[in-house]
C-alpha cells in the first residue's frame, strides 16, 4: 500500500482457516504453522477468541494468514462459538471475508466422526486441504490409513501430520500454497430427492425473497437452515426475512417428513453412510485393536466411586501444593518489596512523594504481586488437567452431581475453570447449547473461589489460623480452612442455581452429551503458554488497575494531612526530650508518638472519615473501619483488598522500619481501646465475605458481554453482595461465641 510505488500493490494477503472437531490438536497445529507469532483478538461483537498468525513461507510474495476457528462437530450451530464458525466460513456478519482455503484438521485415530465435518466443508465451494493429525496414535491403535486413497475419495489433498512432534508441517505448508487456487472438490454424498428438492426450493425462494444476502444462500447454508429446526441459522434467517420464512421452513419440513425422512437425522445418516463406504476402502486394520490405555484409565477415572475419590485426591493435592510450593517464593517477593520500600524511604526525602512511593505503590502493588506464584501453580494444574483430556472425565463424573444444580455435567468445566478465574470460566460456557443452562452457569460461576480470592485467604489464614496438623498430618488446619473456603462458594451455588432454574431461568434440564477425548500427554508448550498468558494478565492488572487503585487509596488516606497534627506531636516530642528519660525509654516514647501521629493523620484523612461513616454497617461483621474501607475499595478487583490493607496500615504507621510484612502489621492492629482487631472470628468473617462477594469488575463486564444485557451482571452483583454480607455476619456471630 506504499504510496511511493503506485504501480506495485502490496502483496495480497491470502487467508486460510483451520477448522476441526474439538480435541483434534487444531491449536497445536496452528502453533506449529505460525510459530507462536499470533495475534489474539475477538470476533466483532463477541468474546469468542480469534487467533490469527502468519505461515512462515519462503515465498514472501504471498503472505498467508492462518485463522484458528473454535472447535465444532458440525456446521449446524447451537452454541455461541459454533455460530462463529459458519459465519467465518461464509465471510459474513462482519466476521471476515471468505477464506481462500480451508484446512480441515482431522483426528486420524477417530476418522469416522471427524470426517462428518469434512464432508460438510466439501460443499462450501472453498478449496480444502485435509490435515490428518495424530497419525502416530492411529498407527498405534492398529489401523493403517491409505492417505492416497482417502485423497482420491475426497477429491482433495490429504497430508498426514503429527502436530505435537512437528512432523509433516512443511508438507502441509506446501499443500496449502499449492491448493490456494486449486478447483474445489465435487465429491460429496448425495441426498434423497425429497431433501434436494426442498433445498433447491429454499435457495430459490431466499434469492427471490431478497434475503438481503450479498450472495445466493449456498446449498450447505440452506441445508443447515432447513435440517436444523430451532438452530442458529434458522433463527438468523427468520430474523432477517420475517415469519413467512419460518412458515415456509415448517412446510418444507413437513413435506420431507411425509416422504418418510427424518428431518433431524437425514443429513447425519447420509453423511455417515458415505463415510462408512469411504472408510471401508481407506482404512485397513493390521492388528486387532489393542486394549487402549485410555480405556484402561477410564475404567478407574469414570468409576462413580473410585473416579470421584481420585478427583477429590487430585484437587486436594492441587490446593495443598498451591499452599506449600508457593510459600518460599512468596516470602521472597514479600521481602523484596519490603526491602524496596525501605530503600526508597531512605532515598526519597520525607513528604508526600515518599509516602506515595513507599506506602502507595510499593506496599500496594507489592502486596498483590506476592500472589503471582499461587496463581501460576493453580493455572498449571488446570492447564495440565485440561490438556490431557481429564476435564471431560470430570464433567462425566460430575453429571449426576450437577443434577443437584438442575444442570448437566457440561456446566462443570466452566465452574471448575472459575476456580482459577471466573472470566475464562464464563467464556467457556459457550459450549453449553441450552441458553437457560448457560445463563445459570454464568450466574453461579463467580461464586467459585477464583485465584484472586487466594491472596485474601492466604494472607489472613497464614497470619491467624494456627498450623495445627489434622488427620495425622495429612492436611494442616490452614490448608483445611482454605479448602473450606473453596467449598463454601460451591455449596452456596447449589441453592442459588436451583432458585434461578425455578424462577428467572425456568426450564427443563438438558441431558448430558459429551465426547470424552482420548487421553494424551499434556504438551508442555501449551501448558506453559496458558500459565504465561494468565500470569501476564495478572501482572498487567497489578501494574495498571491495582496500581491506580493503590494510588487513589493512598491519596484518600494521606490527604488533607493537616499541619495542626504535626504541630501538636512536635510539642509532645520536645516535652519527651525534656522529661529526662533514659535513651531507651525516650526511643520508645518517640516511636509511640510517631505511631499516634500517623494514626491520627489516617483518621482525619478523607478515607478515614469515609471509613468511620460506614463503620456501623461493618461492625456487626467484627470489622473495623479499615477493613470496611478496604472491602469497598476492592470493588474493581478482589485482590486489591490486600493492596489496600497494605496501604492503609502502612499509612497508619502500623509498620515499623524493619518491615516484617503485612502479616505482622495486621497482628499489631488494634481498636482504639487497645483490643486487637484481628482474631479468628474476624478473619473467618472477612474470608467468608470475600468467598461470596462479586468484587470483580472484569467478571461483571464479561457477563454483560456474554449475555448482551445489563440485567444479568446487576443481578449477579446484587445477589452475591447480599449473600456475602449475610454470610460474613453469620460467620462472625457464630464464631465469636464458639471459637
Amino acid at each position, binding site marked *: 500500500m506504499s504510496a511511493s510505488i503506485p504501480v506495485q500493490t502490496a502483496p495480497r494477503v491470502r487467508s486460510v482457516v483451520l477448522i476441526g472437531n474439538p480435541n483434534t490438536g487444531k491449536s497445536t497445529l496452528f502453533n506449529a504453522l505460525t510459530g507462536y507469532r499470533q495475534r489474539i483478538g475477538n470476533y466483532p461483537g463477541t468474546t469468542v477468541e480469534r487467533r490469527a498468525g502468519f505461515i512462515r513461507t519462503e515465498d514472501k510474495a504471498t503472505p498467508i494468514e492462518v485463522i484458528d476457528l473454535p472447535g465444532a*462437530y*458440525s456446521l*449446524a450451530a*447451537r452454541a455461541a462459538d459454533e455460530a462463529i464458525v459458519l459465519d467465518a466460513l461464509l465471510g459474513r456478519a462482519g466476521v471476515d471475508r471468505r477464506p481462500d482455503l480451508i484446512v480441515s484438521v482431522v483426528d486420524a*485415530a*477417530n*476418522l*469416522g*466422526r471427524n470426517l*462428518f465435518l469434512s464432508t460438510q466443508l466439501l460443499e462450501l465451494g472453498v478449496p480444502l486441504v485435509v490435515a490428518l493429525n495424530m497419525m502416530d496414535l492411529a498407527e498405534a491403535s492398529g489401523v493403517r490409513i491409505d492417505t492416497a486413497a482417502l485423497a482420491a475419495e475426497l477429491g482433495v489433498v490429504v497430508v498426514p501430520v503429527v502436530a505435537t512432534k512437528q512432523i509433516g508441517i512443511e508438507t502441509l505448508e506446501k499443500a496449502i500454497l499449492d491448493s490456494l487456487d486449486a478447483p474445489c472438490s465435487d465429491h460429496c454424498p448425495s441426498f434423497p430427492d425429497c431433501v434436494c428438492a426442498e433445498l433447491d426450493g429454499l435457495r430459490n425462494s431466499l434469492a427471490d425473497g431478497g434475503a438481503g444476502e450479498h450472495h445466493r444462500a449456498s446449498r450447505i447454508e440452506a441445508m443447515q437452515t432447513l*435440517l*436444523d*429446526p*430451532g*438452530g442458529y441459522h434458522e433463527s438468523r434467517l427468520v430474523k432477517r426475512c420475517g415469519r413467512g420464512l419460518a412458515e415456509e421452513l415448517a412446510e418444507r419440513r413437513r413435506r420431507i417428513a411425509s416422504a418418510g425422512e*427424518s*428431518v*433431524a*437425522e437425514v*443429513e*447425519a*445418516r447420509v453423511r*455417515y*453412510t458415505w463415510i462408512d463406504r469411504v472408510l471401508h476402502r481407506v482404512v485397513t486394520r493390521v492388528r486387532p485393536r489393542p486394549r487402549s490405555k*485410555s*480405556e484402561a484409565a*477410564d*475404567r478407574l477415572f*469414570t*468409576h*462413580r466411586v473410585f473416579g470421584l475419590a481420585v478427583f477429590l485426591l487430585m484437587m486436594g493435592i492441587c490446593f495443598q501444593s498451591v499452599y506449600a510450593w508457593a510459600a518460599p517464593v512468596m516470602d521472597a517477593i514479600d521481602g523484596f518489596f519490603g526491602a524496596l520500600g525501605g530503600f526508597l524511604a531512605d532515598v526519597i526525602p520525607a513528604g508526600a512523594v515518599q509516602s506515595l512511593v513507599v506506602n502507595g505503590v510499593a506496599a500496594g502493588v507489592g502486596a498483590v504481586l506476592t500472589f503471582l506464584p499461587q496463581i501460576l501453580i493453580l493455572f498449571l494444574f488446570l492447564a495440565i488437567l485440561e490438556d490431557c483430556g481429564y476435564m*471431560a472425565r470430570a*464433567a*462425566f463424573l460430575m*453429571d*449426576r452431581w450437577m443434577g443437584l444444580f438442575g444442570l*448437566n*455435567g457440561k456446566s462443570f468445566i466452566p465452574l471448575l475453570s472459575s476456580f482459577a478465574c471466573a472470566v475464562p470460566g464464563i467464556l467457556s460456557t459457550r459450549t453449553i*447449547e441450552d441458553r437457560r443452562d448457560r445463563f445459570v452457569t454464568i450466574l453461579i460461576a463467580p461464586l467459585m473461589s477464583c485465584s484472586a480470592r487466594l491472596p485474601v485467604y492466604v494472607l489472613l489464614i497464614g497470619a491467624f489460623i494456627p498450623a495445627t496438623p489434622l488427620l495425622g498430618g495429612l492436611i494442616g488446619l490452614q490448608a483445611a480452612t482454605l479448602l473450606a473456603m473453596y467449598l463454601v462458594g460451591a455449596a452456596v451455588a447449589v441453592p442459588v442455581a436451583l432458585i434461578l432454574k425455578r424462577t428467572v431461568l425456568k426450564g427443563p434440564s*438438558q*441431558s*448430558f*452429551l*459429551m*465426547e*470424552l*477425548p*482420548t487421553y494424551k500427554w499434556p504438551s508442555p508448550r501449551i501448558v506453559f503458554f496458558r500459565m504465561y498468558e494468565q500470569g501476564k494478565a495478572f501482572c498487567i492488572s497489578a501494574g495498571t488497575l491495582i496500581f491506580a487503585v493503590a494510588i487513589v487509596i493512598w491519596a484518600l488516606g494521606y490527604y488533607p494531612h493537616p499541619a495542626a497534627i504535626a504541630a501538636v506531636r512536635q510539642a509532645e516530642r520536645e516535652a519527651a526530650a525534656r522529661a529526662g528519660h533514659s535513651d531507651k525509654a525516650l526511643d520508645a516514647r518517640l516511636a509511640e508518638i510517631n505511631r499516634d501521629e500517623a494514626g491520627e493523620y489516617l483518621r482525619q484523612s478523607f478515607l478515614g472519615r469515609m471509613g468511620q461513616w460506614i463503620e456501623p454497617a461493618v461492625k456487626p461483621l467484627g470489622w473495623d473501619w479499615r477493613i470496611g474501607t478496604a472491602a469497598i475499595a476492592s470493588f474493581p478487583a478482589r485482590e486489591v483488598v490486600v493492596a489496600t490493607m497494605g496501604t492503609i496500615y502502612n499509612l497508619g504507621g502500623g509498620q515499623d522500619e524493619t518491615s516484617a510484612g503485612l502479616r505482622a502489621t495486621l497482628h499489631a492492629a488494634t481498636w482504639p481501646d487497645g483490643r486487637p482487631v484481628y482474631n479468628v472470628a474476624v478473619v473467618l468473617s472477612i474470608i467468608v465475605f470475600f468467598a461470596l462477594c462479586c468484587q470483580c469488575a472484569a467478571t461483571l463486564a464479561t457477563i454483560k458481554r456474554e449475555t448482551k444485557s445489563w440485567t444479568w451482571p446487576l443481578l449477579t452483583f446484587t445477589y452475591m453482595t447480599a449473600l456475602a454480607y449475610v454470610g460474613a455476619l453469620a460467620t462472625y456471630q457464630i464464631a465469636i461465641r464458639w471459637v
Partner: protein
Amino acid sequence: MEKEAVQDRLSSLKTGEAAAVVSVKAAQTAAKRLADMGFVRGAVVEMIRPGKPCLVRISGTCVGLGVEHQRNIVVHRP
C-alpha cells in the same frame, strides 16, 4: 411382541454389549445433536460403562450420555 423383545433402549445394554441404533425418539434439537455425533439408524453402539450417565463408543469415539438420551435411543441387539 417378538419385535419388542429385540428392540430395546440404549440404557438396557450391559458392559461390552454392542447394538445397532434403530431410532432416536427425542425432540428435534436433541435428535439433531445426537445424529451429528453419530447416533443414526444402523450405527453400532457399544456400551463401555452403563450408568447415569453412561459411557458408549460410537463411530470410534467415547461419548458420555445422560439418562434422558439413553432412554430416547432405541437399539436393536444382533
